[in-house]
């Protein structure tokens, strides 16, 4: 299909001086011109004066795609949106968008504090290039979504931040632009409204509208986007399925991988009693698991050296999701070592998390060794020791079944259901053959 967004050979540079000064005075401009020409004469083509906010970007976006843009601050995500929406001009290359663009780059962009909510809706619509008739038709919907019926004729300067945000989101999302740019908006507002925004974005997606979504919340990105582009210093690092890109990004960002080894004993987490030497996430077969099928069990394996004899030690693992929420904390309560002082030596303990239990997403594990007698002592803490990704590839035999949309919840256990039914005389029909396709998502 013909792409709705085309980016060809796109680069954008800033002169660093320009960034620092922002704007110049005549005197400075003259002085700089003179200085620059002198410098040019002395050293030709000196590098390091320009900063590439975007460098050599080439990609296309299909209609209806929800594309996530991730990267550190200053990676060029916002600049890319600005170039696409023509706010600023590229240094080389070109971009084309085959549709109107709605932007939600910051809370209440283009709102005038002295105008009422209603007046601002019209103004905002006009800024997005939308006809007055169309805005009038959508007005009630916008006001209702923003939950501002009572205050719509009040100047927005008396609005709270939340009201302001709700109005801004409502305008941008309810006007039917073919393309929607969103930059970190869901980070604001109360939980209820955030959920409403997410639901709205799913709805927009179903309408076939194209969304470019910039966010630092990997949870939001993986939930909303099928595809993610990772930018670093203006360059594209990776472009691919959301889970794969996010996983690699988090791998570099957190510096956590599925295996962690401490070669030197002095550097290993621990004290004079015990030292952790290796932590890894593993599959049943023994392979280290960077990426794990949601149906398979995963083991968190702790390798540690006990240095002093006579301590009762308990290995402990805490699992967290990418939002930092703790899923559970588990320590070994098995009989073998529960009350038994440990001899000196190397141990390998593994805790097994069953298949069809975790939710999809990126998980981290804190590992540690503790002792409880006489008081609790944390001997070898290794926070963020390992990270791995759980992928639900829609094989139909996971808890997901035939449903392909987002599923809430910290965990996703496959549970038993019972159904009681009194048929009376009616015949129970045969099961309908399954016609939906089983989908393999590349990881």
């Amino acid at each position: 299909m013909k792409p709705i967004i085309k980016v060809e050979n796109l680069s954008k540079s800033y002169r660093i001086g320009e960034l620092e000064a922002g704007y110049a005075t005549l005197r400075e401009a003259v002085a700089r011109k003179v200085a620059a020409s002198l410098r040019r004469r002395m050293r030709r083509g000196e590098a390091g004066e320009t900063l590439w906010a975007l460098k050599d970007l080439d990609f296309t976006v299909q209609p209806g795609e929800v594309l996530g843009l991730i990267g550190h601050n200053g990676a060029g995500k916002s600049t890319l949106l600005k170039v696409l929406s023509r706010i600023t001009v590229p240094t080389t290359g070109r971009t084309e968008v085959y549709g109107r663009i709605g932007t939600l780059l910051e809370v209440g962009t283009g709102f005038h504090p002295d105008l009422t909510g209603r007046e601002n809706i019209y103004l905002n619509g006009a800024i997005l290039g939308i006809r007055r008739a169309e805005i009038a038709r959508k007005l009630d919907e916008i006001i209702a979504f923003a939950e501002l019926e009572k205050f719509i004729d009040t100047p927005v300067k008396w609005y709270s931040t939340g009201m302001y945000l709700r109005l801004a989101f409502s305008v941008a999302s309810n006007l039917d632009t073919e393309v929607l740019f969103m930059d970190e908006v869901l980070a604001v507002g109360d939980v209820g409204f955030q959920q409403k925004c997410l639901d709205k974005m799913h709805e927009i997606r179903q309408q076939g509208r194209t969304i470019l979504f910039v966010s630092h919340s990997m949870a939001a990105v993986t939930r909303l986007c099928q595809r993610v582009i990772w930018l670093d210093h203006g360059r594209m690092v990776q472009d691919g399925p959301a889970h794969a890109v996010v996983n690699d990004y988090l791998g570099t960002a957190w510096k956590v991988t599925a295996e962690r080894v401490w070669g030197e004993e002095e550097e290993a987490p621990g004290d004079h009693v015990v030292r952790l030497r290796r932590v890894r996430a593993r599959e049943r077969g023994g392979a280290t698991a960077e990426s794990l099928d949601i149906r398979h069990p995963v083991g968190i394996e702790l390798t540690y050296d006990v240095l002093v004899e006579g301590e009762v030690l308990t290995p402990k693992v805490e699992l967290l999701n990418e939002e930092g929420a703790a899923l559970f904390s588990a320590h070994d309560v098995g009989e073998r070592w529960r009350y038994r002082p440990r001899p000196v030596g190397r141990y390998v303990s593994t805790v097994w998390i069953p298949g069809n239990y975790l939710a999809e997403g990126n998980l981290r594990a804190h590992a540690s060794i503790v002792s409880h007698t006489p008081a609790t002592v944390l001997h070898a803490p290794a926070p963020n020791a390992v990270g791995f990704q759980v992928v639900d590839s829609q094989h139909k035999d996971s808890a997901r079944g035939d449903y392909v949309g987002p599923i809430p919840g910290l965990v996703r256990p496959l549970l038993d259901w019972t159904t009681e039914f009194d048929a009376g005389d009616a015949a129970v029909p045969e099961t309908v053959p399954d016609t939906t396709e089983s989908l393999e998502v590349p990881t």
Partner: protein
Amino acid sequence: MSGEQAGPTEALNYESGDGDDGGAPPRRAAPHVLPLAPVVANEAGAALRLRDLGDVWAFRELLYFLTWRDIRVRYKQTAMGAAWAIIQPLVMMLVFAVVFGMMGVPTDGMPYFIFFYCGLLPWTFFSGAVTNSSLSLVTNGNLISKVYFPRVLIPTATIGAGLVDLAVASVILVLLAFYYGMPATRNLLMLPVLVVLTVLMSLGLGMWLAALTVKYRDVRHVLPFTLQVWFFVTPIIYPANLLDVKWRWLLYLNPMTGIVEGLRSAISGRAFDWPSIAFSATVTLAVLVISIFAFNRIEKSFADLI
């Protein structure tokens, strides 16, 4: 607060609908057929293209809204509202009429009040429009750095808002003309031409200064006293023929001279000084063309500079 949807949703592989743009609102999984030409294209280079002019047309409703916003905001939370548009030139007129009237400045036989008001009316509009539009891009910086639309609409809207003030202030001139029994001659037909000239002059200068202010904030400091000097070299508080014929052309270098004197001729019915009006028109058009190009050249970097 969970966000589950009822049943399998999703419609990733949709068919293209028939691109009915203004169609019924409840559209589900029926996107537009993509247009042949990009709606939003951006590329390196800064040449003025025909498409830019098409953009201005496409955003004409925004011009209306920005103008309307400027008017709304200007008189919000003021007790007197739009009356301020009248009070300012009116008070100036009274002051000048009293001071210069007592000094015996010649007025070509026109009543003092009308003579001064004919000068003050276009001048108040001009200086206000130029001042406001020169600052307009900077004060709308948050808009410029966040959303795209033809930037030229911002200074233009400021002038549009000034035009409403001009219309209100003109009421006084009409009343004065009736009061003093000024003759209704064919000369009045020139009024719209003079208004258009003033608007274009303000637009040209305002646009150019607005673009310049984005880059050099010095403009903000230079403009007030430049306008003050300009006020005195424009025959507002004196008639143009106060100067010797030999030096009068100097006065005509100032495009505002033709406009002010033209307005006096239109109201009083005396003969127009066509060369001065023609000169005004020429200068105005030149300024306008130059500023369109200057504006376009700087426009591309506004968002990076603001």
